[in-house]
């Protein structure tokens, strides 16, 4: 078989891109790719990330309100940056849960699911999407029962912080859900959203990169390697460029 007529349907049997918003259905008709006699090259064969779209893809409205409130306490608005909500962290998590991260398509998910040692890592059967749905439901139920029928978004900032500290410390009884383990997942995903390229919906206007001084996707620092202990002069750029560029027209 020659490669040219069979290349297209064979690429990326194991597409796992963080960019994949909806899980890509693999074409049923795929072939092994045989290459001989030349280096193959085809136009538009690469797979650039897809920009994040507006709207909620995974969270239901009440879940979205809770997540926005949570990320706004994990990363509060202060004189250093906007808060997690305005930075897009909730939107980021939503897109991730709607895609291949949320459905655990790249993980080993075969039974039996047994309880292991700490060195064996997470052994649960639930996907990240299922874990969020169940944990947010359990948190809401817990708070409404103990906090005068209020959900997380209705608590004061101090109450919210105290609840998150208790969750982090494993002090909140959420029944079958391990609150501490869920908190770690939530914190990891929130930080991903805050520090990832803005194309994924978080780190809006590269807010976190500007804050810490990370220049992003510049890719060439040869002119500054030997300038030891001197601040790097240029601000960040992302995969899609820089918002400043569009104001200069």
């Amino acid at each position, binding site marked *: 078989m020659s490669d040219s007529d069979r290349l297209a349907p064979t690429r990326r049997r*194991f597409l796992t891109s963080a960019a994949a918003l909806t899980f890509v259905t693999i074409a049923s008709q795929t072939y092994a790719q045989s290459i001989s006699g030349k280096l193959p090259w085809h136009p538009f064969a690469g797979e*650039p990330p897809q920009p994040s779209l507006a709207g909620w893809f995974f969270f239901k409205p009440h879940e979205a309100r809770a997540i926005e409130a949570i990320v706004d306490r994990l990363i509060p608005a202060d004189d*250093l940056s906007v808060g997690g909500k305005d930075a897009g962290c909730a939107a980021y998590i939503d897109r991730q849960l709607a895609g291949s991260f949320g459905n655990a398509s790249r993980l080993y998910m075969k039974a039996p699911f047994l309880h292991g040692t*700490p060195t064996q890592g997470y052994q649960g059967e639930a996907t990240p999407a299922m874990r969020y749905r169940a944990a947010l439901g359990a948190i809401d139920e817990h708070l409404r029962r103990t906090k005068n029928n209020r959900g997380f978004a209705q608590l004061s900032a101090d109450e919210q912080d105290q609840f998150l500290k208790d969750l982090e410390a494993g002090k909140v009884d959420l029944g079958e859900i391990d609150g501490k383990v869920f908190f770690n997942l939530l914190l990891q995903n929130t930080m991903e959203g805050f520090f990832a390229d803005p194309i994924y919906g978080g780190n809006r206007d590269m807010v976190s990169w500007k804050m810490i001084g990370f220049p992003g996707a510049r890719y060439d620092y040869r002119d500054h390697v030997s300038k030891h202990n001197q601040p790097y002069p240029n601000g960040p750029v992302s995969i899609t460029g820089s918002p400043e560029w569009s104001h200069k027209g």
Partner: protein
Amino acid sequence: MARKLPRKDVVIVGLGWTGAILAHELTDAGLDVVAIERGPWRDTATDFNIGYMPDELRYAVRRDLFLQPAQEAITMRNNVSETALPMRDYGSFLPGTGVGGAGVHWNGHTWRFDPADFQLKTHLTERYGAERIADLQVEDWGVTYDEMENAYDRFEYLCGISGKAGNLGGNIQDGGNPFEGARKREYPLPPMKMTYAPTLFAQAAKSLGLHPFPTPSANLSKPYVNPLGIGMGECTYCGFCERFGCANYSKSSAQTTILPVLMRKSNFEARCNSEVMQVNLDPSGKMAKSVTYVDSSGVEWEQPAEMVLLCAYGLHNARLMMLSNIGKIYDPQTGEGTVGRNYCYQTNAGMQLFFDDKNFNPFIAAGACGQTVDDFNGDHFDHGPVDFVGGAGINCIPTNGRPIGFRPVPPGTPRWGSEWKKATKDNYLKSFAFSSQGSSYAARGNYLDLDPTYKDRFGRPLLRMTFDFPDNDIRMSHWVSDRMEEIAKALNPKKYVSGKRNKSWNSVPYQSTHNTGGATMGANPKTSAVNKYLQSWDVPNVFVIGASAFQQNAGKNPTGTVGALAFHAADAIRNQYLRNPGAPLVQA
């Protein structure tokens, strides 16, 4: 029922570093070669696209270029009394997949092992007595450093390694590693430009009487044309190296050093998205006749060949041997069997430093741009007064400032909230780390076999890894951590934090993708699965090439030795095996 294909001279399983080197060498010898690779075709222009390669989430966190556990997982436990469970996500180590293998997304530290590493059992027994290694299962490799020198040289010149020789023909050179084995010529390229943190580290180490030198790097310090005529570019210090493909053609890989020539040859074919199920033996069980593979549409094929080269990742080489009944699987109770024996890892520890008054620009970095102190590695110092064997290189090689993963804050800082944010901002530019990369010496209870419960997507048993750090290696690592603390103090930081290595091995946090052994080489078929030419003792038309051949791991990154072993095996096949195909090159 598998569809049978026309016979080839050679079938190679896996088209990474070793598969590409062997394919190039054997097609040059006139053989008809097919490489079967379970991952996709990948090349720089299409897949390591400069427009979107600098994407930490996609490539470093979600690990788009890596083997995913859904495709093949590995089960693990710390000792035989536990039940192994699958690593549902890879963490401690991250195997590659696809054309180029893990050589696509490595950092590029390119070492030679010491002369003593190849004859470790003999060397340690002679110097310290057999008692000192009684708890370990260290072995000789059946080859000497001198036999490997030419192969190391060829791999370094293939890659365009940037470095400074420390020992030219026995003459110690200023600025290089004075502890290395003798090399016949300089590195092909001079060392990289040095960033600030390794520069300070080297000054501090020197002030203590140590011998820092630039880490030998496969990130190129200058443009280079390799012996195959393939041109490469200068590294841009972009800070997106390990876990990423290089968009600049400046990190050595099969893509940047071999494939542009190999792929043009009419006697070579790469078959991608095709996973080898097993090697098929003839009825005697002493000769391989073909491999069976399944393509991505689920169609099963049988590819007959005169010889089979296992060039997958070392762990997968060992598993394929087990699945194909090549050799006998190791049993830790009896000590018998060789396949899966002497699985080793890497014994690492860290040191994080915080300053008030310095700006390290951590994002200006390359995978292998840094400084190494080798004074406490291997047997470079007298182990008479200490209670362990082995050692560690101390490396200051800041590879990146990518902020999902790199956000150093002092211990005690909250993980979220305004206080966390302030500490993150305050320390991002003002902190760096160095680390020890320690030897991992074989022990009787550390091994690989097949899992009795968990299966892959084809229903084949997963590889089962039983491993914990031997006590010897923990004592070694703690001792080296104390030496690191002396360097940390000499740097006079505001604060330093020593991250010591302790039991038990944890499969979750990333440590190192330096998994070695499982199909080890040696002179004795009772303690090795392949002979000194990497030829199976049991099935002589099968060669098994990779870090699977290491009898134990040194305190150094394995790729330089893996590449050298590929040239070493290629020479043996071209110059010896092909004269009398099917015959063992070493009599058992």
